[in-house]
């Protein structure tokens, strides 16, 4: 199923966050959205997941117009979100968080099997299943967040800054798991500030700057362009010191 975003504009009240975003994610693809802080990446991903409403533009998944779907029914389309900052239900246990991921009808029926798979991917969560989610370390919380999303049996997984605040070794682990999930056929849309990580894993990437897509393509091409450096650091390579 294809995710199609066309000229999407999103605003908070009258404060625009995204002016014009166009991207596509194909079945089983890993696509990255990179760009500096404040570019609108999280806003974009939250809108795809149904947490935000868009102002204009088209948003379709598998041909279904997501703008017309009420927020709590978006997950039924097969989209699951691992939000920035994890946003776990901190007052509930690890297992309860995972169960909440499998809340929707179809996912609920298959939940025992899916739970086993999640514990297989993250054995440490099985050990801590009854612990309060808020008491886990950052890396473990990230695992719960990913596990929770997997419980929803998505065909498209949205990951928003999964490496934020984590030690490099833990991040390595995280990205290995993301690759493993992708190998099972789940498409991934990855939002990352960390350009290196994002380009290592993605088949294609979009560069978002100030709410607009300013470049896109496979990592090999993007790495050569100075567009990324300009977006993040503000100057082109050829700039002379004033």
């Amino acid at each position, binding site marked *: 199923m294809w995710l199609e975003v066309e000229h999407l504009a999103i605003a908070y009240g009258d404060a625009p966050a995204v002016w014009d975003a166009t991207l596509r994610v194909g079945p089983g693809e890993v696509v990255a959205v990179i760009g*500096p802080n*404040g*570019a609108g990446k999280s806003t974009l991903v939250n809108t795809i997941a149904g947490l935000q409403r868009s102002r204009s533009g088209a948003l379709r998944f598998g041909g279904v117009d997501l703008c017309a779907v009420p927020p709590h029914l978006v997950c039924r389309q097969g989209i699951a979100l691992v939000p920035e900052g994890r946003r776990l239900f901190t007052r509930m246990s690890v297992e309860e968080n995972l169960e909440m991921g499998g809340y929707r009808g179809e996912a609920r029926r298959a939940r025992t099997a899916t739970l086993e798979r999640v514990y297989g991917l993250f054995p440490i969560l099985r050990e801590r299943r009854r612990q309060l989610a808020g008491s886990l370390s950052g890396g473990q919380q990230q695992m719960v967040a990913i596990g929770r999303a997997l419980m929803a049996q998505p065909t498209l997984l949205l990951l928003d800054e999964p490496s934020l605040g984590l030690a490099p070794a833990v991040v390595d682990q995280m990205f290995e798991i993301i690759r493993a999930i992708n190998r099972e056929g789940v498409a991934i849309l990855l939002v990352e500030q960390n*350009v*290196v990580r994002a380009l290592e894993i993605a088949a294609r990437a979009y560069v978002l700057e100030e709410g607009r897509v300013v470049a896109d393509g496979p990592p090999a091409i993007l790495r050569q362009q100075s567009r990324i450096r300009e977006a*993040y*650091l503000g100057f082109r390579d050829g700039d002379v010191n*004033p």
Partner: protein
Amino acid sequence: MAPGRRVAVGLLAAGLGFGALATVGIPAFYESFLYMIFSWIALATSWSILSGYAGYFSFGHGAFFGAGMYTTATLTTALGLPFLATLPIAGLLAAALGLGIGAVVFRVKRLRGELFGLLTLAVGFVLATIVLNTRIDGGPGVYLSAVPLPRVLASPTGTLYLLGLALALATVGTAYAVAHSRLGLGLYAIHDDEDVAELKGVPTLSYKLIAFALSAGIAGVAGGIHAMYVSYVTVGETFSITVPLYVVLMSVLGGARHWLGPAVGATMIAASLYAFTGGQQALLGRALVAFILILIVLLLPEGVVPAVLARWRAWRPRSMEVSEPPAALPARAAPAAVLTCEHVWRAFGGIQALRGVSLAVAPGEILGLVGPNGSGKTTLINVISGYYTADRGRVTLGGEALTERTAHEIARLGVGRTYQIPRPFAHFTALDNVALAATFGPGRCPPRQARDEARAWLDFTGLGRRATALPHELNLHERKFLELARALAGAPRVILLDEVLSGLNPAEIASAVRLIQQIRARGVAVLFVEHLMRAVLELSDRVVVLNEGEVIAAGSPHEAMRSERVIEVYLGTTHVA
């Protein structure tokens, strides 16, 4: 005639009118009826001085009323004091009670809204129990029938009628005076956004205490008068749920933010309550009143008086906007100064947000503060402006330490800030938003001058024509510039800009950049947090890069942004070439 003069004349006329009514002689029923209305006017209006203006809904107004009643009851019967002498004592005692409660409760930040309401409700019940169980009442109640009442008019209750009238007029006059004073201005700002008010220089704690004491004191005097009126005081009747709840109703109905609102609401409700005297009728009356309250809360949340005023303004022909010549921008109140942070540390729970951050911003310099998400930029601004305290380290302005001071003192010393998401006072016009900052900020001007200065700053930011607009009528760009104008009012020595450019389109960004350059030209020190790298490079004289609470680079923009460490943090190691 100036509006204040008009109100005073109006009150005087009402006083003479109603006073004359009593002298001429009216049937006892109507005298009582009017007295009750006066009493409720005093109670509701006094309640709104804190709760309506500042938004701290108290459900314990009955406690002060009861304190006043029992003060008079006890002093006249047990100590034989003359009735009139007990009234000021009742007021003072009730005010002291209010001060005591406020001193404890107002310091606790989370006790706002419904929790403050519940707390005050609880206090009322506690006071009732104490009164019931000690010698103040002890159970049987207190009889005041033997207490001599100075006779002024023909009827025995004439004195009380006149006292009630005088108190009602005095209370409404006080409410008007407060509403148009600095105290009132500060209270209204507290209502809209207490944290921002504090940061703009409003001494929030003192103002809340003063309002509470005033409100309680008036209720106490009303109670003292009422004790004589009922002449048999019992705990059950005095401390029942009636007073606390009805004053809320009356004020909300009439308009809790307006000086005349509670009086109108009190008249409407009291009149309908006491007009129906028969059993079944009284019931219907109460139910009807409650129903009206529900309708008003849902449909006219600001109350009757503001709604009527708004309708009246819409009918009147709009007066022509007089274009005044642009006012001159005021000079700075204090000499220019350097802002320094010295080894500032700050943690939240287990997370170290700032690790020994040191920097300095000189007058006429723009320092760009950049860094990835969560690096501590906004925390630093919050520490400098006084919203957070530093765990370790110092912040100084012109050599004077800011670190141990309250936020409003820091604002007065000349620190202005903007918020990334603009937080204007929702009920204030653009002009009044800026004028408030001028009134309470470093310049501390009187109201007249504050408005002139406000107009000047609005012109500076290009919002001159939008001076009378309310914040919700402004678009984002205008709100951001209003935020800027408000931060500039009072001519601060340092201005902290928190992502002022986010959400603006390129044309708006260009005009914002020009503005900031003009601010620098006036000799203000500018600390400027931004994600928009191009703007940072264009504007900043120097740049400081934060990462995870630490300064990892400082220097000219190009130096800092090309440093290896910075590139590594933003893009990852392979980009460092």
